[in-house]
């Protein structure tokens, strides 16, 4: 059974550096999402992406964040200049229908 795949599984970066988190959704997915979970806190919505554009973003998703789906398969989340508080588990999700979300296994981002 196909799965949403995320790479890397763990990323350590220095504060101020740029990071790119990668996701390969299932091929027939039309809706794409990024969520994050800070340790000990709830899973929080960051951004949704449909029809090659952002359909919704949260307050967390400020100018430091961007998403891309450059080649029709990979879906990336870029954080331009990381802060300590960006340390979290980042989940990619995709679905065929609105609100349907199949999650990847997550990327643990540690900013030092």
């Amino acid at each position, binding site marked *: 059974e196909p799965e949403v795949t995320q790479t890397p599984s763990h990323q350590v970066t220095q504060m101020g550096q740029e990071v790119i988190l990668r996701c390969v959704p299932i091929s027939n997915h039309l809706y794409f999402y990024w969520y994050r979970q800070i340790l000990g806190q709830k*899973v929080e919505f960051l951004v949704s992406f449909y029809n090659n554009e952002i359909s*919704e973003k949260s307050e967390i998703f400020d100018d430091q964040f961007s998403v891309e789906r450059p080649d029709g398969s990979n879906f990336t989340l870029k954080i331009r200049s990381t802060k300590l508080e960006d340390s979290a588990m980042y*989940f990619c999700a995709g679905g065929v229908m609105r609100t349907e979300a199949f999650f990847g296994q*997550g990327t643990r981002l540690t900013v030092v």
Partner: protein
Amino acid sequence: AQRVTQPEKLLSVFKGAPVELKCNYSYSGSPELFWYVQYSRQRLQLLLRHISRESIKGFTADLNKGETSFHLKKPFAQEEDSAMYYCALAGNTDKLIFGTGTRLQVFP
């Protein structure tokens, strides 16, 4: 404001006992409600959604609009049910609003 509340951080039961994981929500319209499960070191998986009204792995959940609740129930817990359970809500947009989760521990 859209909000999902899971009042219990941890629920411990013995194998064979009934389980009820509580979920209350706040939303002014007609929400879609979901339960997700995360087994140890695995990804978040959709367990069930209220519109499908199905039973998965013996779990059921009924949307009670009067009480704004979507509690997850299973009559006889199994050890393999031990996991983190998240209730989630979708309103009139694509995003999911998650609760803080309840860890279910089923002892032998």
